[in-house]
């Protein structure tokens, strides 16, 4: 951790986005995590993504639970709304906030303990309800804050720092998310920002439950020989399905690709996801095929990354419930508290 804040001076030629902000304007307080923590790279990727998307900081609500990962919202988007909830309860708080005001961009940040153990149910239900959000799990496969016990995402057979072998089966959050209906599913690695930043951008422009499992090595407790979440292991076993470019109209990408190499998917908001295929047979719009492929490659010892599934035409919780479009804070008293007569009418309708 560091005592001194990061110096305010920046590169004199640092570019600005359409809003006139530099990337530095999307930063938060200085990180108090261990030096070299993968989570800090993910924070940097979120900062970069929001900068590139010209997002107004006050249009973002960042939510988290408890854990190293859940501390990170303090370290990015210092001018955004934030809520640091109880352990594992970020998905409910986020769902509630989203129901009250659908006009904000919701960014849920969680960890493998927060989402795969104490908050597993919360995670699962927020996905299956279709909350419009970007849900990022900073997955290091270890309980870092309590000094290195296996977490629920530690791979079976992997070793703890002191040599203990994990005998429990790991929860694959990607598999769960696919199964429960997430409409944008990706996996990435904190050490590969070229891959991660576009995946976050695509997720933030997605109108539905977008889930990113981001492997993020814990330098203090899970970066040793025998770990399957170390920098070295992930680099050696990383198998990217595709590379993503997110095109929002502002800066067109003009690179040429051979026919068949590129697939473009237009999202609801008009943004285009341009996927450069690295595996010719992989189809990211086929949920069942994606699940099968994932299991196959896992059995072969590979860590599959990239945009694994995308439904370009998602439905979200508001659509399912038929809620009012206007945020609750902009409705008048009469609409919010319709009175006894209105209640009577509802009750009568249910009889």
């Amino acid at each position, binding site marked *: *951790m*560091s*005592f*001194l804040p*990061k*110096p*305010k*001076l*920046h*590169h*004199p*030629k*640092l570019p600005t986005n359409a809003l006139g902000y530099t990337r*530095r304007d999307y930063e938060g307080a200085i*990180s108090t995590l*261990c*030096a*070299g*923590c*993968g989570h*800090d*790279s993910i*924070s*940097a990727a979120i900062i970069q993504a929001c900068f590139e998307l010209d997002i107004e900081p006050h249009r973002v609500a960042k939510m988290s639970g408890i854990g190293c990962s859940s501390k990170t919202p303090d370290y990015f988007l210092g001018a955004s709304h934030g809520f640091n909830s109880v352990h594992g309860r970020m998905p409910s708080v986020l769902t509630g906030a989203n129901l009250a005001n659908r006009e904000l961009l919701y960014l849920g940040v969680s960890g493998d303990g927060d989402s795969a153990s104490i908050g597993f149910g919360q995670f699962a239900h927020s996905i299956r309800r279709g909350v419009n959000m970007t849900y990022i799990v900073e997955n290091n496969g270890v309980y870092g804050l309590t000094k290195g016990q296996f977490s629920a995402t530690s791979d079976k057979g992997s070793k703890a720092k002191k040599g203990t072998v994990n005998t429990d089966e790991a929860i694959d959050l990607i598999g769960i998310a696919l199964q429960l209906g997430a409409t944008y599913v990706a996996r990435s690695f*904190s*050490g590969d*920002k070229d891959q991660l930043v576009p995946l976050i951008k695509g997720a933030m422009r997605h109108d539905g439950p977008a889930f990113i499992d981001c492997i993020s*090595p814990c*330098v203090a407790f899970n*970066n040793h020989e025998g770990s399957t979440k170390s*920098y*070295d292991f992930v*680099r050696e076993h990383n198998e990217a399905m595709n590379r993503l470019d997110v095109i929002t109209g502002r800066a067109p990408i003009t690179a040429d690709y051979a026919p068949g190499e590129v697939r473009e998917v237009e999202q609801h908001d008009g943004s285009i996801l341009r996927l450069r295929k690295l595996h010719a047979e992989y189809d990211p719009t086929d949920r069942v095929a994606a699940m099968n492929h994932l299991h196959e490659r896992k059995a072969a010892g590979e860590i599959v990354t990239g945009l694994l599934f995308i439904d370009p035409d998602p439905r979200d919780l508001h659509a399912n419930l038929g809620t009012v479009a206007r945020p609750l804070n902009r409705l008048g008293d009469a609409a919010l508290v319709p009175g006894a007569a209105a209640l009577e009418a509802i009750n009568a309708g249910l009889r």
Partner: protein
Amino acid sequence: MTPTDISNPDYFHKVVDCQWACPAHTPVPEYIRLIAAGRYSDAYMVNWHSNVFPGVLGRTCDRPCEPACRRGRVEEEPVAICRLKRVAADNKEDVLARMPAIPSVGNGKRIACIGAGPASLTVARDLAPLGYEVHVYDEQAKGGGFIRSQIPRFRLPESVIDEEVGYITGRGGVVTHYNQRVGSLRALLGEGYDAVFVGAGAPRGRDLDVPGRREAAANIHIGIDWLSSVSFGHIEKVGRRVIVLGGGNTAMDCCRSARRLGGEQVTVVVRSGFEEMKASPWEKEDALKEGIPIRNFLVPKQVLHEDGRLTGMVFEAVKAERDAKGRRQLVPSGEPDVVIEANDVLVAIGQENAFPWIEGDLGIEFDRWGLPKLDEATLQSTLPQVFFGGDAAFGPKNIIWAVAHGHQAAVSIDLFCRGEDVSQRPPPDVVMSSQKMGIHEWSYDSAVSLDLRFKVPHAENEVALRDIKTEVELGYDRELAFKEAQRCLNCDVQTVFSAKLCIECDACVDICPVDCITFTEDGEEMELRDRLKMPAHNLEQAIYVADGLKTGRVMAKDEDVCLHCGMCAERCPTGAWDMQKFLLESAKPKAERVHACAIR
């Protein structure tokens, strides 16, 4: 590209832009930190070892360090390096005891220095502690040369000159021959000196050649001669209306002196534009502040006179144009001539070298500009035992260059007297030391100040213009000096990278406030510079490239705007980055190793 060789002292030396730009290679950040710590005497000695005249230079230096300062590339203005130097000189305690002892028994070698200016005095200072008997000749009654005769007292009080010249001439080992003009080099060589150093300056001011010059001669003065007459009290008054010709620092000294000696309407007239003037920007600013207009693009055409008295001058208006070959030329603008009335004219349009006292058959060769043919590194002339330095060597420069020449010449003379090859230059002394004290604690102040440059307080015009001996600049007080010192980025605290420790976690890349670190595929330098996180388009600044990483990529760091804040090292989990202080002292004659490196 080829990985950076950080074992070559030049690499990190160049990163310390101020020190690299200083002809005498003064370790600037080192003494600035000492000033911030209130260790003024230590700061003074770091300066003294490198530039010999900290009190003088802290007021008058041309400060090549400041345009080079990295701070000027990350915000508006560089650190006020020069004026901080003065703070060290103003606040130091008695430093005599810290100076190298002069041995009571000499080494038997006798050296003559011609001229008692900064170059000669530097030679004397460097050689006397080694046991050399140095004889210094000067036509004036006191040492200092142009420092004493040319720089007006309102910029440099005489007490400062006396003190710093005294540290050299008053501690033994140096014999002064003042009031003695060397009229013949042959005669001097005949006195059996082991080596002779010519530091006689460029003592001849260029004259004006226009109609009326001769008739009005009584009211036309050569700038440098007039300034020295003012310095020595021979001239105490000037006419009410004065024209100063020329756009250099001498012209600025002339006009400001004239303003103090009764000149009410003093006008500077320059052939070229305001931007092209040779005077330092701050000198022009100071002149303007004292109510002296500077008129540009006017070429002297004629001197007007009546009954042998000067009445004014006529100037032709010109403009700058590029000729067919793209060279800039001044051509008549077609506007009517400008007449400026005046009682006196001061001519400060340049200086020339003149060596009438060096006999043609001694074996010292001169080039077609009248300058001696010298080896640029050793300053040795074509007569092996004669060396040149200061303005006498390559024409008019400035004090800090004269000092730098003095050091080089002293090294050469020492080698020469030992019978060694003068072309084998000794390497500089370099010490690298880690600044790490704890996980996130450094032994330098790593926090980066956001303060803008602090102005040096000046005396009010009413006070300053009344007496030519009233110093205009008041200097920083200790509190202002501390704040200004904190603006220094500590560029000598280097980011040192060790690829074999790096796990490529990107922590340094993410934290760097100026985006100067990139991990990427190797490539040719120009192509690599282009695809760094922030493209490195300042080609004068190196990129630090290290290979040997596990992924086969390279680490490439653009040195250009690095704040030396240590964040990369602080956020590095494996200690692959370390902040190491790079302290370099340029080579001095051998025994004098009492230098800055002793203070850590």
